[in-house]
Each structure stands twice: as structure tokens, then as C-alpha cells.
């Protein structure tokens, strides 16, 4: 499996706009050196947060990590742009692990997918949808149902073959269509839900 994690940030969410405008927010989630390598054209706190949280989610499937995400455990040390996608290398400092992320830049959101192995690029599928409920407890259910429908339509997996265990650890979620495990990661923020999975 690929060990992937994803994170979406709604750039127009009112609280996000307020938080990301506060310079102290950026100071709490990054070092000065790290912040300097993020291009000025990007909303730095949103970019750094989505890269690091996606990395935490990916890593939590592989290593024992603290139960609460600490952005200061991660350092972004390389960024390369290809069109609307930024590729990053991220170091998990407590265990000196490298992760690789791709961040999709859109007017409405930043969406990062992180993985433990650079060679996994190309094997990952993802989708992003606008949310049609404001109730957070329904968002989690909605993204799963949407994913199952998509997998059912695209891959012909029977809907009854999926099983998710969202409470097993902080983030890892596996589904089991037929005999193959699929590594999957969900994210919800503001008006967006997103999902990334290997196949």
C-alpha cells in the first residue's frame, strides 16, 4: 500500500481567512526559514498547514505518532512547481523520515496529498467535491458515501464490499473491496470534502 494522507483547506472559509491573516498563526506552524521557501504567490499558512497535515495523516499509518498533530514536527525543505501543482519534500523531524507531497492550487482551495514514497506518484487518485451540508457530523458520512459511489461506478466494486473503520487510529482508513485493500484518506474543510486513494 502507498500510505497516503490528504488535506484540503477552504480558502474562503471565514475562520480560515481570519486565521491565515494573523502573522502569529504562521509563526506557530512553521519556522522562519521554512516560511521563506514558500512562494509569495501562495497563502503561506494554508500551504504549510495542508502539506504538514497530509504528511501527518500518511505517517500515522506507518509510525506511532502523537495523537494530536503538531505542525512543528514537520519541516518543508524543498518546493518545486509544475503548473498548478507544487511538489514538496517534507521531513518528519522526530524520526527523520522524508515524505513527498503534491499540492493542487485552486482559487477556492489548496489540496495536498502526501505519501511516504516518491515513486508512488501516479498511482494516486483523488476527487474534490463541494459540500452540500453545513453539519460537520454529516460531512464525514457524505464523503464516504460519495467515494463508495464513485468506486462503484468507476471500478465496479460492489457497494456491499466496503468496510471503513474511522475510529481505529487518528486517521488511517482502509476499505476492502473484494480481496484487495485500498489505502484511502479523507479530508473536510469549510465547503469542501476530498478524498485520495490508491488503486
Amino acid at each position: 500500500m502507498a500510505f497516503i494522507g490528504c488535506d484540503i483547506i477552504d480558502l474562503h472559509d471565514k475562520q480560515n481567512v481570519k486565521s491565515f491573516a494573523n502573522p502569529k498563526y504562521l509563526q506557530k506552524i512553521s519556522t522562519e526559514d521554512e516560511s521563506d521557501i514558500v512562494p509569495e504567490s501562495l497563502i503561506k499558512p494554508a500551504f504549510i498547514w495542508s502539506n504538514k497535515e497530509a504528511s501527518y495523516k500518511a505517517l500515522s499509518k506507518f509510525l506511532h505518532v502523537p495523537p494530536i498533530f503538531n505542525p512543528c514536527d514537520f519541516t518543508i525543505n524543498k518546493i518545486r512547481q509544475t503548473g498548478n501543482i507544487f511538489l514538496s519534500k517534507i521531513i518528519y523531524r522526530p524520526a527523520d523520515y522524508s515524505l513527498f507531497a503534491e499540492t493542487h492550487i485552486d482559487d477556492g482551495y489548496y489540496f495536498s496529498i502526501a505519501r511516504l514514497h516518491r515513486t508512488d506518484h501516479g498511482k494516486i487518485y483523488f476527487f474534490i467535491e463541494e459540500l452540500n451540508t453545513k453539519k460537520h457530523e454529516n460531512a464525514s458520512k457524505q464523503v464516504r458515501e460519495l467515494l463508495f459511489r464513485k468506486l462503484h461506478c468507476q471500478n465496479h466494486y460492489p457497494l456491499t464490499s466496503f468496510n471503513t473503520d474511522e475510529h481505529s487510529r487518528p486517521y488511517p482508513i482502509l476499505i476492502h473491496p473484494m480481496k484487495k485493500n485500498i489505502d484511502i484518506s479523507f479530508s473536510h474543510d469549510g465547503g469542501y470534502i476530498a478524498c485520495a486513494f490508491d488503486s
Partner: protein
Amino acid sequence: MEQIEKKLKEILSKYLPDKKIPESFNPDMKLISDLKINSARIVDIILDIEEEFEIDFSNRDIEKISNISGILNLIKSKTQAK
């Protein structure tokens, strides 16, 4: 401690999905899984606490605030150390 808890509830309520402290509120509750606070808001909560109580959190302190009792203990120890 009651005064700290009261102020903490005021801060947390701003970041709860329905902006209201639940009746079941208790020190064992976890911010993300129980109170359904968005993880990106944890930083906002830390900044608000620092301002309200005039204390500073270190980078490592974030790991101690996964639940309410962790936050209360941290605020108490830092305000006493001032």
C-alpha cells in the same frame, strides 16, 4: 480553576461547529474527536489562550492539549509559573 475553565469554555465555543458548549462537556473530552473542532483551529485556540492568560506555549505544548484536562493543567501550570 473554575475561572480558568469558564474562560476556556468561552474560547472553545468560538471554534465549535455549532458555537455552543455541549451539556456533556467534561475534562476527558478530546478537542477533535469529541468536540468536533477542526484541527486547523487548534492553533487559533492556542493563540487565544496565550492572549487571554498572558502566557506562552512552546512548540511541544500542543501535544498536551488533546483533551480539556490537558489544556486546563497547562494553563494552570503556566499561570502559576508567571
